[in-house]
């Protein structure tokens, strides 16, 4: 095999990384410029950053509440989907019951359809069907947590199934013989071995819920409004506040970057987990 030139390879990947990171850098550049400078000749190098957008965004009570909503909804949803997905996959992997594979396939097909297809039925469900007196799920955090389950739970089941399938059944059996109860088998053996897969599922479902716009824009008004929908409020009839939008976008990116960085190790392990039985 022909040996590749390491310098060329490194240069190639530096270039690709720059191309990928450039929009993020540019977003940051926009966020630290006052409105008047935005449409002047673009300047690649950052001079005298203007932090006014940041102080305005951080001082804005609405944006803060959007951020809290986003955090609660995406964290709640990711946690719920991961936990439910874990137990569903455990049942699918370890027990034999009629229609097992059909259930698996039927569940993941939910993920195949475009979210817009579910908009009207979900709206009707939230406003008409699931209501107790005056209380409906529309524009509530719990409502949005449940709505995102429509897409994230199938995804969680999809990613966790191979992880649990990859844990030899003999480990469960050995634990049963060693005196473990079914719950102990799950908590002592299966759960710890699933950690990489669970981390991947948690982060990816979290990112989906954090980034989601369409459903949040339609099914929330004020109380459960999320950061992504909050962004659109800065496109007004009098103009678009690019600086503020860019700043909010930076705030949208930060938590995702932090969470991603924290579980990056697990993601790499998780994506290869179960591929080869070790």
């Amino acid at each position, binding site marked *: 095999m022909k040996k590749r030139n390491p310098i060329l390879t490194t240069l190639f990947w530096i270039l690709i990384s720059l191309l990928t990171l450039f929009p993020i850098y540019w977003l940051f550049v926009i966020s630290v410029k006052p409105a008047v400078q935005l449409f002047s000749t673009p300047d690649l190098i950052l001079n005298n950053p203007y932090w006014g957008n940041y102080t305005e965004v951080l001082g804005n009570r609405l944006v803060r509440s959007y951020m809290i909503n986003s955090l609660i909804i995406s964290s709640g949803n990711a946690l719920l989907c991961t936990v439910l997905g874990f137990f569903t996959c455990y049942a699918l992997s370890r027990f034999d019951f009629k229609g097992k594979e059909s259930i698996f396939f039927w569940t993941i097909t939910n993920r195949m359809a475009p979210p817009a297809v579910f908009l009207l039925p979900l709206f009707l469900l939230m406003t008409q069907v699931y209501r107790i007196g005056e209380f409906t799920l529309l524009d509530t955090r719990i409502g949005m947590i449940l709505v995102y389950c429509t897409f994230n739970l199938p995804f969680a089941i999809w990613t966790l199934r191979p992880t649990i399938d990859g844990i030899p059944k*003999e*480990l469960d059996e*050995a*634990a049963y*013989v*060693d005196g473990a109860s079914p719950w102990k088998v799950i908590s002592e*053996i299966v759960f710890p071995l699933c950690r990489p897969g669970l981390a991947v599922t948690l982060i990816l479902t979290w990112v989906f819920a954090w980034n989601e716009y369409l459903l949040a824009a339609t099914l929330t008004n004020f109380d459960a409004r999320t950061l992504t929908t909050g962004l659109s409020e800065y496109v007004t009839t009098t103009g678009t506040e690019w600086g503020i939008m860019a700043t909010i976008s930076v705030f949208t990116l930060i938590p995702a970057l932090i969470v991603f960085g924290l579980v990056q190790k697990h993601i790499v392990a998780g994506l290869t987990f179960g591929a080869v039985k070790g």
Partner: protein
Amino acid sequence: MANVKIENVVKRYSNVQVMHGVDVDIEDGEFVVLVGPSGCGKSTLLRMLAGLEEISDGTISIGGRVVNDVIPKDRDIAMVFQSYALYPHKTVFDNIGFPLKMAKQPDSVIKEKVTKAAEVLDLDHLLDRYPKQLSGGQRQRVAMGRAIVRDPQVFLFDEPLSNLDAKLRVTMRVEIKELHQRLGTTIVYVTHDQIEAMTMADKIVVMRDGRVEQIGSPLDLYDHPKNVFVAGFIGSPSMNFVHGTIAVKDGKKVFLSDHGLELPVPENNARTNQAVTYGIRPEHIQVGDQGVPMKVVVVEPTGSETQVFAKSGPELIDALVKDRISAKPGSELCYMIDPANVHLFDRETEQRI
């Protein structure tokens, strides 16, 4: 310690019956080996003993208690799996101590028992390691440690040596046997390797297609196989089989193969003209200048012994001799067979005559 009684055990998977009324009696402290080819049901039977498979019919009792509906953890058994089934995220100490932890034993007791088991198995210097950091033999010993630490009534071994290399297999074989002698606990051991069965067992249960073919001591099975299957399965190299009939020559019974090969037979119940399968173990054939003339096909010297494959017409018969033989393929030699070592089976029923 306890005796184990398997009575008329049947196993069905929906409409397919895989176990057809198996009966095995295992005495207290006995080392019993279930042996048979792949798919004979030996592992299924062991798993039924462990409570990992349900029993469709019949009863299994351990220490006089019927355990058909008792869950594995309440059967007072310990099992060593083929793949060892060590918990990869736990250290050797935690692996061995796991059954005690599940039994809610205090930490001091766990430490004491694990340390003792580790000493017995020469694992005391490896207690902090993870399974992936161990060699095959060490993993095997950890799996055994996890079993002995519980001090169960019965040990179940499911092909525990099949993942080890040949040399280590012999070492571990001795270790398991030694462990049995020391602990005296009843052991049920599954293997497809008849050498393992012969060398380790007090009693061998030979199985085929979900049925017990024969139960007996290793030498009993070797000397008096009940049928062609057991005769062919027990012993290495396998017994030679030649099809033919019993004839009379000069007033004496002889065996005449379908292709005209004449071989000596013992005085037994075989009738004249009865269609039989003639069985002779390779190690019971002597090679020399007198006897049945054969043409050498292949000679396999192993140092300690030599295996000779020779033909008479289309019949290929191999002999295993202690001497070193200089015969070349194509050359002629003679097989001497002592009729006392010959096994005759009815050709139709395949049962011993």
